[in-house]
């Protein structure tokens, strides 16, 4: 073979090999759930509070992991619940948050998460009633928490009782039992912040913290705060 032929051959093989490995690595390290952002920056006039509605569901019912517990976000433009947990929010703005909680509850591993912290007024409402702390060892327990550790924000999401638990997202406020909680917090300056759940709610994982708790798009996500 001539030198040019060998050069072309080696280069070709090299490109094919590199392409294969790069493609393999690149496709495999992208998350299973699309990392899309739900945009809340232009849903209101400047300085006005942002309305953010989410729901929690005991098992998402579709996608790569149908048995996993998940949050869903109500897209402010279409009004539909989407399987995304990362939000783009304006900086230094009040966010009025509404959570529809469809999952059952249990005692907390650390009852400290039963105390509302970091919201405006350090309180939240549960089905219209104001509360600052919830004893997870009584009643229906706590199903999830909504927490932004960087802001010291924690709100316990009280679990629902009964057998008629919604098992397929999205659970529209209909026949299924649910709790509605509302609270407000103020976004910090621009940057990326993460939020998560502190209830070990991932079924079948040691300490309940694997699976849905350890995969972005289910029980945690990011706040992309922009100015």
């Amino acid at each position, binding site marked *: 073979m001539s030198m040019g032929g060998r050069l072309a051959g080696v280069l070709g093989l090299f490109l094919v090999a590199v392409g294969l490995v790069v493609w393999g690595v690149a496709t495999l390290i992208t998350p299973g759930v699309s990392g899309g952002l739900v945009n809340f920056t232009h849903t209101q006039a400047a300085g006005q509070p942002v309305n953010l509605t989410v729901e929690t569901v005991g098992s998402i019912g579709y996608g790569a992991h149908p048995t996993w517990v998940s949050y869903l976000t109500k897209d402010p433009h279409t009004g539909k619940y989407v399987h995304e947990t990362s939000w783009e929010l304006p900086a230094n703005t009040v966010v009025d948050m509404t959570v529809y909680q469809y999952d059952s509850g249990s005692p*907390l*591993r650390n009852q400290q998460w039963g105390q509302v912290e970091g919201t405006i007024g350090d309180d939240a409402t549960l089905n219209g009633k104001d509360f600052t702390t919830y004893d997870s060892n009584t009643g229906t327990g706590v199903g999830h928490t909504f927490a932004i550790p960087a802001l010291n924000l924690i709100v316990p999401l009280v679990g629902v009782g009964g057998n008629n638990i919604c098992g397929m997202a999205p659970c529209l406020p209909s026949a299924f039992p649910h709790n509605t909680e509302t609270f407000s917090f103020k976004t910090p300056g621009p940057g990326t912040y993460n939020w998560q759940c502190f209830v*070990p709610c991932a079924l079948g994982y040691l*300490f309940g913290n694997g699976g849905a708790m350890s995969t972005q798009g289910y029980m945690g996500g990011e706040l992309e705060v922009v100015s």
Partner: protein
Amino acid sequence: MAEENSTDTDSHFRRITIIWLVLSVVLDLLYWFLVGPHVPPGRMTSTARADQFDFNVLFVVALPVLIGIWEFMLYSVFTWRSKRAGVPEPVGGPTAAGNKRAEVSWIVITSVVVLLLAAFGTVSVITGKGSGGGEVPNPLWSPSGSVKAETAALAGTGTWAPNTNAVLPVQVIGQQWKWTYRYPTFGGFESSQLILPDNTNIEFNVTSLDVIHSFWAYQLEVKADANPEENNVAFTKTEQLGSFVVRCSELCGIWHGAMFNYGKVVSQTAFMTWATQTEAANATNTEDLPIFAWTYVPDANGAAGGYYPDGKLTPYSSDEVYGSKQPGS
């Protein structure tokens, strides 16, 4: 020939030694006085100060070693480089394949330096009360008063007040993925803020509710792994006011990188005000917490059942394990 060789050898050696000596002394002095005082983690606590001193001592010992080898390599590159193309003449001489004196002195010198460093490190650990590292409760060198403080804390009778010189026990609880802190001398309230009084012996009792974390209060120079069902104790004494960062330094899962918060060292009276206020504000929640203990045993199944098939639907109830109410403080 041999005579000439050896004087030549000695002149190389002498030159290298002199350059080394001058460089080492100058750079060591420059380091010690210009860089040393600014070396992390600063001097916010007794352990930070002591460990900074340790680092600087090690650096002053290490610098001549680095300089010596690098200087020797550079010297040989420029002096003993083969000047002409091709394979040079072989190098002979009686010392080419070994030199008893050089070998023995190398071994003796490195051994002495290494043993001295080990001895120095041991002394520093003991006088530094563990140097801020995690260790079992009540090691031989624990600060005075800490055993008493621990016993009282566990019995729910611990107290702390400004200007009493008492040890302040603080429990650090790691969980995926946040630190919380309990203050047993203030009714055992739990907080996600770490506030400490100035000029006080602090005893961190570090434990975990799930996987292994590592409590790293950077400016305080405290680092202790948080293991489930283990009480890992680290001692330090605050010496300066200011804020510090707490990070997790043992990989603990997805949000490991976000598992940090900021703490503050405030004056003793300010701390007392904060602690009593927070104790009052959290009173309802504190009643729901388990009794203060060195470790907690939440069920490995998590809140909703799972990994180990032990059949419990609500696997962990602190009431069941510890009783429902806090003891009076």
